[in-house]
């Protein structure tokens, strides 16, 4: 028998061990999240909204939020149900945009709170454009019109959103859909959308 064949079982064993030794694949939980905004994801988004409407029978669901981008130098993708919603008066600036909205949702790592001022007051059915740079209520202070707050046990990350371009549409009398794109004041960029059900569950 040629000498090389004597080594075949050992080589096969070594190759088997080496071949079986794939690195651990442990992607972040963001890899299991989806970005469901945009015309190509309409079906997915609508399915999540329908799921939310069903959930409202037994638990709190006020809509769907999805976003993607870079926050604190990390790539983020989120799709989640909105667990809390508030719409309030915002007395600053143009009376045609005298509302503010606050949306709360959860992700695998943190809770997300989006605050947006400069909302159109009904009966305007839709509004699109860039938010002003300053939404402060007094002439001597400054604050962005949109704020992102991430909360997790042991810390939080609050950042103003600048260069915000948003589109808001009344889907129905009770549901408002908003899509946005913005830079983060501390670096990074986000785009996303949320559709919320204005009426609380019975």
């Amino acid at each position: 028998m040629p000498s090389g064949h004597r080594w075949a079982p050992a080589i096969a064993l070594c190759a088997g061990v080496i071949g079986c030794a794939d690195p651990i694949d442990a992607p972040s939980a963001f890899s299991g999240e989806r970005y469901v905004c945009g015309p190509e994801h309409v079906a997915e988004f609508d399915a999540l909204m329908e799921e939310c409407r069903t959930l409202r029978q037994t638990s709190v669901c006020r809509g769907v939020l999805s976003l993607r981008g870079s926050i604190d130098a990390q790539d983020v993708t989120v799709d989640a149900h909105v667990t809390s919603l508030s719409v309030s008066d915002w007395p600053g600036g143009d009376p045609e945009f005298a509302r503010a909205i606050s949306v709360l949702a959860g992700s695998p790592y943190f809770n997300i709170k989006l605050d947006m001022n400069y909302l159109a007051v009904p009966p305007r059915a839709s509004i699109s454009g860039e938010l002003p740079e300053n939404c402060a209520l007094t002439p001597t202070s400054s604050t962005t019109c949109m704020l992102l707050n991430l909360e997790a046990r042991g810390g939080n990350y609050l950042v103003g959103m600048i260069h915000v371009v948003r589109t808001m549409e009344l889907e129905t009398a009770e549901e408002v859909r908003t899509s946005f794109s913005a830079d983060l004041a501390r670096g990074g960029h986000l785009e996303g959308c949320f559709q919320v059900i204005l009426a609380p569950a019975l």
Partner: protein
Amino acid sequence: MIATAPARASAQEPASQGSAAGPAAAAAGSSRPVDIEDIPLEGLLDLNLEDRLGKTEAVSRANESVLRAPASMTTLDSTELRLSGATNVPDALRSVPGVAVVRHAPGNYVVSLRGTGGLAGNNVILLVDGIPLNNPMDGTINWDLVPLHVEDIERIEVVRGPVSPTYGANAYTGVINIVLRRSVGLSPGYAARLRAGVGTGGGKLASGSGRFVHVTPGLELRGFVSGDWDGTSATPATAGSDDAPLKTIVFATQATVLLDSLNRVSFDFGRAASNRSGQDHLALLADAQDQNLWFGRVLYELTQPDVFLSSARLWAQGTAFDIDAVSPPSGFSYVESEAHRGAIGTDLVLTLRPWLGATLGGQLNLERVDARFLHPNADGELRPSYGFYGGLKAQPLPVLDLTLTVRADQSPISSDLDYSARASAVYHRDTWALRATAASAFRSPTYVEAAGRFVDPANDQILLEGNDRIQAPRNTSLELGATFSPEPDFTFSGSVYGSRLTHLMVEDFESVVRRTFQNDDEAHDFIGAELEASWRVSDALTLTPSFTWLEWLSGAQGIDTNVGVPDQNARLTAGLRLHGMFGNETWGYGASGALTSARQYDVRAGIPPQVLSSELAPATHLDATLERQLIARPSLWLSLRVGARLPAGKAPSPLPFATESEQRAILGLEMRRE
């Protein structure tokens, strides 16, 4: 005692390279050992320095003289250990140069070497007769699971510096090898002891332990058992949890069949179980947890000096760990986790020429970790890995030894093939030796670091997650050492070294977006010096002072790595061991202690994370023993052990045991036949 593996057979054997093999086998010894402690002072004149320092297998996995070994090493022999007053291995190591010891909780210690002091205890390998006992899950050492009492240890060898070329990944700062007690004098030999004591605060402790050693021409049997209940270090009130005394029960057995003068087979088996607080830098709550360890090995050895195949070893070994709890934990803990590892391997020593030898070896490993805090892709997966090494040892001149060892290991985590290497030159004369060593070694990322997923049970959000792209931390070191013995009763050794730690782990708790592990891009450079002397003042007194100095050249640059942070390492440590027998050896006494300079922890750790701000003021650790023989036959001894931990100050901390002062006194009876 400085690097004094008991002279035993080494006092009679010539210092030949390539004889015997492997830490376990040669540690068993084929001839009746003679402890250098038993040699009268005037008898030391008959031994040269090399004989007095003895032999070791801990540095190169081949029997070699300590004087000519290519690394710094300290040996604590059985007499030192018995008379040191230490009741566990970490406390016995406090006076060893280059070693840093911090206690997180009763039975839960972090022991680190050369600048890697910090919160993580996975930077050094613990061997028991050559069997590694680090937990595969996170690489840490459960010091409460050492399977025998400290007084049943033949010797502890502390090898400092990158030793991965010999032992593979994770020995990148050194190894601590515990050698089981060998027979001394009479056979069968045995010891049985009962101890009871109290500590400050009124806590009580009790322990029972013993050993049996029987050596015949064809068979060697060893058995060790120990049980402890220690309520002296119950959780202090600041931890906000119920008392969690330390309870352990351990045993180890070894049977060696001497087939003939060249061949032997050994069987090792052991079990250790403990119940203690699970508090550490990630699990901040002091809930009690059960820890279990099983280990076993079959080892075949062939020893035939001066033949081409001077020695050969074939071995198969396995370890199994699990952590569990009777009651559900109140917060994050490591309970409900299991880790299993099996390995087969071989080590060969070849004599190529009378002046040239080679070592070859390799091993295949298989391991599996089950834990609820692992990524689903890694949980319960069987993961193979392997390692192989080769080395050359040349003696071009009778006074000059040159060694080169290179090793490659595939990580079971990343599947990367990482390399380690060591080159050394030792120039030795009758009363002194000089050593230069350059080495580079690494630590494989752990399952926690690469694939951890710690979920908050309150809201299912991930509090800390592994990073499967993490790189292996590396230690590259250059060292100069010297051993000097101007008189037979005095030996001095010292080393200076420079080290660079790269790719250290950062537990990035700062980012809210995703807390994970990452590598520090900055190198951590430091230099150090270790000095140790052994002075046999008389047959009744041996002094071993030591001194360690650490100076950081660069450190954390705004990122807190979990080791290698200057503030977390004591800059200065002074140690002292002394012991002796008097009154016709019916009295024994000893003490060991260390004074460490201040350390500080100011890191964000824990799950969920909180700031750990702890100042370890300059601290004194002192243990002492006094024993008296009551009856000669059978030999019955009464002993008093005292211990004191005296930090100069205290700050409240989520890890309160690191700053707690404590004193204890223990009375004991021991019967032994040796």
